């Protein structure tokens, strides 16, 4: 197996918060490599530091100390505006609560990152948005408002929004936290499909069965990585969905 290209490298990443006189280590000297094409699931109890880690590698926050390289280039020396550009062009975000703009159609929500990207011409903006929505199976709901969409559909719009600038990495923070298990599996199906197409995915989750769809799991506890292992019995979303379908079929026939 050829050695995979390195995408994200963090060394000795530390983040501390001060509460009174006490210094709390949200991250305690974390070092990690994420290769291109990886599908990483980050697990851990709340307060374990997984979201802090996610925010830092998602370029939304700065660590207290440490090093962060993306494609071999230093990230932490850049200012806020450069990080914003980086988020716009290289990263896509998917949140637990979807975070779509209210009263804004699916298509306009997906167009949003393109409006903040100077390199995208107005003429191809609409086409790119429609393509992204089509790739998550929502080509028939372009004009729908978020409140007219189910949770799964809203999350798919959010994924399309994350995809539209053709990012290297998709950062997903508890993407299935607000969804039922069948819809969760559908979202995982989309992630696995995107991953197969070459997009790296970093996902925070506390549900072990969702983490099973990833290639690698790491577990945080008290700001430290306590486990980092490839997933042995990886679930494939398409197969799981068939299983659920047959289960419900059996239930309905019996």
């Amino acid at each position, binding site marked *: 197996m050829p050695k995979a290209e390195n995408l994200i490298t963090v060394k000795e990443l530390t983040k501390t918060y001060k509460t009174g006189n006490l210094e709390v280590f949200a991250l305690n000297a974390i070092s990690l490599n994420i290769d291109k094409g990886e599908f990483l699931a980050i697990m851990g109890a709340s307060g374990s530091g997984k979201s802090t880690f996610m925010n830092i590698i998602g370029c939304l926050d700065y660590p207290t100390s440490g090093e962060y390289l993306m494609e071999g280039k230093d990230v932490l020396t850049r200012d806020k505006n450069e990080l*914003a550009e980086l988020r716009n062009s290289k990263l896509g975000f998917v*949140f637990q609560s979807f975070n779509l703009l209210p009263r804004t159609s699916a298509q306009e929500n997906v167009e949003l990152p393109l*409006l903040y990207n100077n390199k995208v011409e107005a003429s191809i903006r609409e086409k790119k948005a429609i393509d992204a929505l089509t790739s998550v199976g929502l080509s028939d709901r372009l004009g729908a408002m978020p409140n007219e969409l189910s949770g799964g559909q809203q999350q798919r719009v959010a994924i399309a929004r994350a995809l539209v600038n053709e990012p290297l990495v998709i950062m997903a923070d508890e993407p299935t936290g607000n969804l039922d298990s069948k819809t969760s599996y559908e979202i995982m199906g989309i992630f696995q499909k995107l991953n197969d197409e070459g997009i790296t995915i970093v996902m925070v989750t506390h549900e072990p069965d969702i983490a099973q769809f990833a290639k690698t799991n790491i577990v945080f506890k008290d700001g430290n990585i306590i486990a980092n292992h490839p997933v042995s019995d990886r679930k494939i979303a398409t197969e799981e969905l068939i299983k659920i379908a047959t289960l419900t079929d059996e239930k309905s026939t019996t």
Partner: protein
Amino acid sequence: MKFFNLFRIAYRSLNRNKLRSFLTMLGIIIGVASVIAMLAIGEGSNQTIQKSISSLGTNSIYIFPGTNSNGGVRGGAGSVQSLTLEDADAIAAHCDLVKYVSPIVQRRSQLIFGPKNWNTTVMGIRNDYMLIRSLNVTIGNGISEADQRTASKVCLVGVTVIFNLFGDENFNPIGQIIRINSIPVKIIGVLSKMGQNTFGQDQDDIVLAPFYTVQKRMMISSDHIGSIIASGKTELQVVDAVDQITSLLREKHKIAPSDAIDFTVRTQSELSNIFGSITKVMTILLASIAGISLLVGGIGIMNIMLVSVTERTREIGIRMAIGAKGKDVLLQFVIESILISIVGGLIGIIMGIVVAELVATFGGWPVVITPLSVIVSFGFSSAIGLFFGWYPARKAAALNPIDALRYE
């Protein structure tokens, strides 16, 4: 390209939150409209009051002949006949601070109508006199220019004269011929009732006739006139107008700068002072009305802007997460504020004018819309809208995206 994108983002944002946009705009509309309407009503009142006061003659200028002194015995005012019709004409022609001028000749005469007679003042005047003294004719017509030229035997009478000659104040004397010093004169108009002046004189006990009629037909022939009455362009320029008249007449009468003048120029300085203080009070009143209206309007705009931006913290977080820079967010809010301010300001101007006109039409209250009030209210409201849209947005734009995202 980039700016156009932000414009599009701002427009979409306003468009999809119509209620919020409207409420924000409402702050500006009410702010601008109230200032314009209040100032229009205030300015209308101010002008009405000023007009009433100036009708008392605050800007009138009286020019009397000077005094005569003979071997240490000095005569009173008017003991020298030094004013001529030419002086009056010269003032009209050369003094640009003077609006109206009329020469006056007057004498006490016996009026006779049928069995009744009455002694009163008959004044020969030019038509400017009516304007200077704010006199109106209630019944009949005023003296025409043709009457003036031809020295027609016509006159205007005050109500006291009517009462004494015809026995009834409300008698319509138009067309009646009365005798003034045996000269038959036709009454063509009745002067509006003026009542007493400040010193208790009955101002309605008077007969006005064309200047030449009195000078040529009723007086012992002479080129000299009794006095001249004039009015300044504005109340505030009366003093300067007096200076102009004085230097003009000095020149005409060939009086050396060291010598005493042979005429007297007087103004109702006491009334002018009252007028000045009333103007000051009205100015302060208007300024306070404007200030308070602007303040109230401004606070309204400020509140809605602050609430609207705070409410959108999460939206700002989303935008930043997907790649909006701080300045993109800021610029978006500034564009939104400008759009709201301009549209709201324009609607406010229209509303303010409509309200002022409604007050004028249905309240019968005079209103005057000054361009300054429109500019000031629009400018101030826009500035407040811009500032209070910009200030919280700047705070939000400086937020950490994750804090903004977490904001509920």
